[in-house]
Each structure stands twice: as C-alpha cells, then as structure tokens.
C-alpha cells in the first residue's frame, strides 16, 4: 500500500501537465462534441466504410476513379476553380474590408449590409438571377455594344457566381482582423519617414495576414464543395466534383463510387492543407499570433 502510494504520488503532476484541466465549465463542450460525433464523425466513417464495401469489399471503387480520365480532370478543375475563386475573392474583399475599417459607422453598416443581403437570399434564386443578367440577351450584353460577350456557361460565369457567394466569407474575417490593427502604428512609421505606401505594405499588411489567411482557407475549402452554381452558370467543361458525386449518389445510385469520390476529395484537400502548413505556419496565421 505505502509503496504504491509512494510511486503514484510523483506521477500526478505529469498527468496534470499532459491533460488540460477541465472544471465543470468544461462540460459545456460536451453537447458540441456529441453533435460533431453524430453529424460528422459517424457519417464520415460510414462514407469511408462504404467506399471500400459497396458493392463488394475491395478497392474497386478507387480503381474506377482512374477508369475514365474524366474524374481526374474534374477533380483538377475543382481545385483550379476553387483556387481562382479564392484569389478573386481576396482581391475584391481586401480593399473592401479595408474601406470598412475607415468608413463612418453609417457607411460601415451600409457596406456590411451590401455584402450580407445576397448571403441571405436563396442560392438558387441568386444563381438564376445571374443567368438573367449574364446571358447573351441579358442585362449586361444589352448595355454593351457589339456582339454579345460570352459570360455564361464558361469560367467567367462560374467565377462571378461563386465569388459573390463567397464574398462574405472573405470580408468578415478580414474585417475582424483589420479592425484590431492600431492605425497609430502607420502614423508612427510615417513619422519616422516611411512613405504611406511603404508603411502600409510593411506595417499594416503583415498585421492583416491572419485575417487574409483565415479568409483564404474558408473560401477555398467551401468552394471545393460547390455544384449548383457551376452547374447552372458553367458549361460542360466547368463541371465540379460535387456534381459528379451527386450524379453518382442520386442518379446512377453507385453509392460506393460516390463515397470513394467524396473520400478522394477529402484526402486531397487534407493533403493540400498539410502541404500548405509546411510552407506557411497556418497555426500562427490563424490566430496564434496575437
């Protein structure tokens, strides 16, 4: 007894160091954990299992991915499209968010509303509205002189539709990060002789990076799952993997193959994020900084 107690005693601090201390407030996290287990972990496990078991046990579904070139092409197109959407969204969202930090409260509200109102509109309604605006006989082409500019059923159409959907996801995190930046730092830099552009680039921009990184990640990963918007605004060449998954799931009913496509998308996305975190310190960018 005494020997046991003696050996147990020194071990205790180690345990305390290893695990975060949970007091009763910690129990508040349990509903969320349970929720995630039920709606994320369990279904994902089911999808993973199905990809190896339906219709027969084995890796047949993964071999089918390479059976036709179309799946790899569509997967590549999915990542390229998501990358382009991220780039354009950030290029538009950055100055917009910056403007929001400078604007008076009234105009800040207006800017916020302008980015959020479309966000509250049904995706299908918005997408059909874009069709009316962008088509050959649509609003834009009626205003432009000359033969109609093709804006629909091609990449520009997809980008316009997706960027509008994604803009709030870019603007909100960037605005949150920029609001916290002390503008007196810029004055201090200029007081020390830096030209405004230089001060902005060397002082302001690095401080805004966490917000930009969070936006980029959010927009990129969300964009990977799109399919209604590219299906309606894109052409046959703009098909994204989500549409093929739905086709296999609800049309052709090859659930094992649909699951394999979903797993491949998930794994490639995870791999890409890991690669990115090697290149840039994601953890620091996403909030460890302050």
């Amino acid at each position, binding site marked *: 007894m005494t020997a046991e107690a003696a050996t147990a005693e020194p071990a205790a601090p180690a345990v305390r160091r290893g695990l975060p201390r949970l007091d009763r407030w910690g129990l508040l996290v349990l509903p969320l954990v349970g929720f995630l287990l039920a*709606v994320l972990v*369990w*279904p994902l496990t*089911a*999808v993973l299992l*199905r990809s190896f078991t339906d219709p027969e046990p084995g890796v047949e579904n993964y071999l089918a991915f390479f059976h*036709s*070139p*179309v799946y790899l*092409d*569509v997967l590549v197109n999915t990542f390229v499209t998501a990358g382009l959407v991220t780039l354009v969204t950030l290029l538009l969202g950055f100055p917009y968010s910056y403007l929001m930090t400078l604007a008076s409260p009234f105009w800040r509200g207006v800017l916020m509303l302008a980015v959020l109102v479309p966000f509250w509109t049904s995706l*299908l309604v918005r997408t*059909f509205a874009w*069709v*009316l605006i962008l*088509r*050959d*006989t649509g609003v834009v082409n009626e205003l432009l002189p000359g033969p109609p500019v093709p804006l629909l*059923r091609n990449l520009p159409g997809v980008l316009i539709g997706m960027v509008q959907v994604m803009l709030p996801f870019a603007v909100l995190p960037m605005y949150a990060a920029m609001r916290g930046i002390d503008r007196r730092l810029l004055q201090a830099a200029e007081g020390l002789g830096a030209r405004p552009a230089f001060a902005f680039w060397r002082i302001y921009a690095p401080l805004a990076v966490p917000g930009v990184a969070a936006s980029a990640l959010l927009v990129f990963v969300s964009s990977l799952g799109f399919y*209604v918007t590219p*299906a*309606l605004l894109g*052409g*046959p*060449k703009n*098909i994204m993997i989500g549409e*093929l998954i*739905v*086709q296999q*799931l*609800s*049309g*052709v*009913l*090859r*659930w094992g193959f649909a*699951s394999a496509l*979903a797993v491949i998308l998930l794994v490639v996305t995870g791999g890409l994020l890991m690669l990115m975190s090697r290149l840039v310190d994601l953890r620091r960018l996403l909030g460890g900084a302050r």
Partner: protein
Amino acid sequence: MWAGRGRAAVSACALIALAGCGGSGGDAKELTVVMWGGDDQQKAVSAYVEPWGKEQGVKIKQDSPTDYAKFRAQVEAKKVSWGVVEVEPNFAVTACKSGWALKIDKAKIDTSKLDQKLVGDCAVPTLQYAFTIGYNTTVFSAQNHPKTWAEFFDTKRFPGKRGFWKYATGAMFEAALLADGVPADKLYPLDIDRAFRKLDTIKKDIVFYETGEQQQQLVSSGETPLIQAWNGRIFAAAKEGKPVANEWNQHLLSYDQLVIPAGYKRADLAQQWLNWFLNNPKAQAIYTNHSAYAPASDAALDYVNPDVRKEIPTSPENAPKRAAIIDYSYWADNYDKVSERLNEWMAQ
C-alpha cells in the same frame, strides 16, 4: 424527366441519407405522396389525390422532390415514410430488380385499361409527355422551322444554338440517331458511338440545360432558339405569352411512373389510391388541362379541353407524328455507362 429540378435541390441530407434519415410511417390513416415539387405537384395532388383522400377519410401528406438516394436509403434503413413516389421508368426498373419497390398486385390495382407498355412489374404510369422540337416563334416561323431531328441538327439551314437536357436519359441520343438516319424501329439498343459522332457535328452549338425553368428561359429569350423540350414546359411558356411553340413531328414519347417503396406501412392505402387514380379518367384530365402532360389512360382524353388536346402527345392529332417511345429497360441497364461516356464527351 424532371430529376434536374430535384437534383438542384438535393441537400446535405443526401449524405446523411446514407446513414438513413427517413421518418416513420405510422399506422394512422394517411398517405404520403412524393413528386417533383413546385406548382405542378400542387396541381396534380389537388386534381387526383386529395379528392380520393376526402372520399376515403385518408389524410394526404406531401413531400418533394423525388430523390432516388433518399428512396433507397429509406428502404434499406427500413424507415419508409414515402408512400407513393413519382419516378422515371429506368429507376422503377432498377428499384424493382433491387427489391426497393413493391410489386404491382393486379388483383388490387386494375391496370387492364392502360397501355401495357407503360406498366412495369413495380410501376404504373402517372403521366405521358413528349420530347418535342421546341422553337422560338420570333426567330423561326410556323412554316419555316426544323420539323425533323435531321433538320434540328442542320445548323447551316437553321442557324443558332440548340438546347438539350444534360442527362443521358434526356433523349439526345435518340434524336441524334434519328437525325443520322437510323429507322425509328431500329433505335434500340442505341448505337452510342454513332450518336456521339452525330452530336460532334453540332457540339459547339449545343447548350445543355439542367432544369425546366432554364429550358423555358433559353428558348423564350431566343438565346437557344431550338431546344429539345418537354412539351408541357413549352405549353406553359406559350400560355404565359412567350414566343415559343412545340413541333410535334418525330416527337419521342416518354412517361413518368408511380411506385410504392418496399416496407411502407400503409401500402394498402397506396394501392387503393393507385387503383382509384388509374381508373378515374376525369381526375386525370384535370391535371392534363393544366399541364398539357398526357393522362395515364387514354380514356381520359374525352375530358381534355380541345385547345389542350392539340398540345398533348397522345391525342389523335399528335400520336401519328410520333417517332418512338423511349425504351427505359435499355436505360435501366445502360444509364451508368452512358452517363460516364457523356461526362467524358462533355469535358473534352
């Protein structure tokens, strides 16, 4: 036919459905009817489901749109909340073979007055429709527009873009083969290679649509002055005053079917309703007068308004102009293979 509409609305539930998100079908006297949704479903249910419900004291519930993944998930999880489901016939064949749908019990459901081509082992017809040549009447006149699929594919004589539904069962292969000179009675099994060679000749002029709304937009705006259309969509747009019309020559007849998911607790009510519906031509005609989709049974033609009769595929005026009826037993066996080839062809 209208799965496009459904597909666009498929929610995240589709994935959760893998794990089974069906509801429960109790023993209450109620029947859940599932169709493609929208105004069409409201009109259909009020025309020929609710009157029966009132008569029999059965509470009618609705869900929409039809989603084959949800259908299968409910049956496999043995939690079936859908009672009668409107589906495409190729799915009806697959569902029947896989045991997901109840066999039609001819002792309980009298199908003797129907065209037997429309009746499957597990399915009965709900409506008939046609893939017609839809055209914009400001771009082409009633005299001078494509009247055959060969002319539909002739972009020199009739310049402009052509619309097709983007799914393999959308009759584009049938139209291409007819245009290429394949006799209508030798269409099946489809020579897919030959069809793709024909489609190649107009590939740059093809616009693929996803939904019925898109179909109406494309043809009525003149952006796609020619479209392989669902006759009822053109009818509806014309009724709203849009400059569009159906060319009935060489139309391809198709149909939707109703099935009862296996394991539905009140299958008895579903069967009773199906029997009432199929043998109630008056009720069928109410929906036809609204939609211009032809009734399941020809007996209903007597109750269809004269101006609508001109616009439905089974009327004495239009039936002789038919090229073929879509063979869904072919599509049940080949849908996945041809879909994959179509995806490849589109991506090229």
